[in-house]
């Protein structure tokens, strides 16, 4: 068996103080002060240890295309940095059997004052390409980037799309035995993204080994046969991509669009009320794992009131991938508002409109509170998870823009532009 990458017990420790923007670099004074306080120990005053990678081991065979997924802060980027030799692991080791090129960012080292042509050479050299190699691929790079007319223009005059296309084109023509790619495909317009994906697939089919980090499950499923899931700096799943992706999205709770508590004794809640199920489904009631950004999604909770005579407020929280609470939504149905509820089974539904949530993973949290007395009966995290995906057909709020979009919601708003003459 031939391996391309063998990682054994890789670990990386960061001292949080080191990582924070403000305290990113020390001054001599701090270190001297630390030395005075702890003359013999290590100067680590006021910093907290964080294991960005914790005992990571895996073997990757030659020619495998492997995806790496996980929530933000799971250690994906750190792993790529260690394997790219950008930073050393704190302990453990890894063997790389072949020339490695890593692409953690497109256009690193691009200089705005230089022309496209000059930047191709500069960037190529930075990524480890030989001049002869760049010469050989030059025409192809320019054709791939679709900027032939502007190749001798300074890149500071490029549009951001042109800039990114040229930068990716250079990187796409790297021909190492092992290619390590961070989420760099989330740039450019949708068509160019597809082209880049196709190019990367070609790389994989040439028998090269590719390690590929992405938040896009579609890209992972399409490109990688095998996927590694990281969480908290450890490998929590490693296997066929569709299985690992399901594990990730469902967080081990079976179908991710729904969660049911079949055993009432284990269900959240108490003597007054108990949660039985939470579902995320389309308007027709079909449980959805991936939701088109343009279509509404229904989130419902099914619960049992065991003790009648309370006013109840069921509510949901939606949380995104960055652990930001996008919204809190409270049951406003006039039928049951301020009305004492008899015991029995209930289903409370809320419709989240289409063209409202941003792309990405949405985690649903469910709660129920009684009024008078005000008591939280349950608050349950991650009761359902779904993916909001944009099909890039141009009629969502992203319009014709294919790049990253900031913001935690993405409503489709009314715009008008008037022309007032020249």
């Amino acid at each position, binding site marked *: 068996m031939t391996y391309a990458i063998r990682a054994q017990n890789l670990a990386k420790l960061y001292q949080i103080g080191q990582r924070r923007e403000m305290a990113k670099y020390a001054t001599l004074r701090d270190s001297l002060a630390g030395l005075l306080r702890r003359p013999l120990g290590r100067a680590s005053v006021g910093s907290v240890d964080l294991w960005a990678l914790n005992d990571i081991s895996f073997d990757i065979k030659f020619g495998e295309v492997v995806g790496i997924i996980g929530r933000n802060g799971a250690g994906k980027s750190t792993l790529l940095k260690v394997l790219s030799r950008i930073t050393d*692991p704190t302990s453990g*080791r890894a063997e790389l*059997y072949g020339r*490695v090129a890593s692409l*953690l960012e497109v256009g690193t080292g691009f200089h705005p004052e230089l022309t496209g042509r000059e930047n191709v050479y500069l960037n190529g050299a930075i990524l480890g390409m030989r001049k002869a190699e760049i010469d050989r691929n030059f025409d192809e790079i320019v054709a791939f980037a679709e900027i032939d007319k502007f190749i001798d223009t300074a890149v500071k005059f490029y549009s951001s799309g042109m800039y990114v296309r040229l930068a990716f084109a250079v990187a796409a023509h790297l021909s190492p035995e092992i290619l390590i790619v961070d989420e760099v495909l989330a740039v450019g317009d949708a*068509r160019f993204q597809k082209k880049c994906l196709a190019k990367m697939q070609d790389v994989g089919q040439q028998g090269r080994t590719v390690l590929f980090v992405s938040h896009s499950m579609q890209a992972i499923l399409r490109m990688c046969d095998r996927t590694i899931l990281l969480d908290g700096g450890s490998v929590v799943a490693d296997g066929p991509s569709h299985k690992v992706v399901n594990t990730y999205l469902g967080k081990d709770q079976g179908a991710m669009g729904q969660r049911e508590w079949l055993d009432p004794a284990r269900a959240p809640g108490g003597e007054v009320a108990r949660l039985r199920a939470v579902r995320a489904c389309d308007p027709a009631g079909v449980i959805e794992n991936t939701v088109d950004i343009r279509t509404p999604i229904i989130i419902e909770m099914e619960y049992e009131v065991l003790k009648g005579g309370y006013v109840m407020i069921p509510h949901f929280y939606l949380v995104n991938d960055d652990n930001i609470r996008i919204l809190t939504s409270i049951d406003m149905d006039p039928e049951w508002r301020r009305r004492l509820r008899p015991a029995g089974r209930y289903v409370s539904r809320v419709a989240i409109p289409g063209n409202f949530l941003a792309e990405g993973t949405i985690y649903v949290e469910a709660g129920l509170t009684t009024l008078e007395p005000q008591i939280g009966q349950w608050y349950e995290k991650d009761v359902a998870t779904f993916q909001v995906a944009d099909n890039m057909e141009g009629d969502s709020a992203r319009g014709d823009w294919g790049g990253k979009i900031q913001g935690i919601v993405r409503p489709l708003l009314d715009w008008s532009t008037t022309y007032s003459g020249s």
Partner: protein
Amino acid sequence: MSAVNTQPTVLPAEPVKAPHKPLVVIGSGGSPFALRLRDVWEYRELFYFLVWRDVKVRYKQTLLGAAWAIIQPLMTMLIFTIIFGRLAGISSDGHPYPVFSYAGLLPWQFFSAALGAASNSLINSSAMVRKVYFPRLVLPVSAVLAGLVDFAIAFVVLLGLMLFYQVVPTLAVLLLPLFLLQAVITAIGVGLWLSAVNARYRDVRHAVPFIVQFWLFATPVVYPSSLLSEPWRTLFGLNPMAGVVEGFRWALLGSAPPSGMIAFSALISLVLLVSGLFYFQSVERKFADVI
């Protein structure tokens, strides 16, 4: 949206063979005394491209362009001539003071500019350091080498000055490349130290201008080292730039060579280079975390 372009044909690529020995081992620690120069050699073209970039970009969007490479030493020489040559009446070993000071300023300004550029080279390229692997050595070294272009331009002015004052070089002029090499070695050595420390402690950024200023007066640029008697003159070679500057004067103007000092300073330059290399390589893998 426009039709999808035809994919550029992918070459049927040289069949990729799996090597049986790891090409790279990460986290093995490695001997602290192993200079990873083979790796640096692999990236030799990057030196060229970075130097070329620095040179190309340096005078972009300036009105006077490369004339700055002449204006700086020329104006400094004028000021030195007025203050130190005329007002203070400092000896110039019998040479016209303008030529005397310019011959010293030439390597000095190369050195001081190289030091400034090298010490900030890692920080100025922090995006590269955090996102791409390459031997970090390339950054400070290419920053130093880029200064050679300015040196060459300023050198032309020296030729003009020598012509004007009718200074005829002796055979010693053949040694000039050696002294230039020493200046380069010294700048790289000190640049490696400063850039590596600067990555960790930004104090360096503030200290460098001060160090350079102090160092100038500790170097026989405005005065001749003949003011010192032996053995102090030889000990003066502890400052390697003293040897470089006196070497330049010897090679260009034919001043009597303070050979003891020059030999001693050459040794110090080598010590700086070698220690700089070891120190730099012992900390370079931490750069991405601290920069």
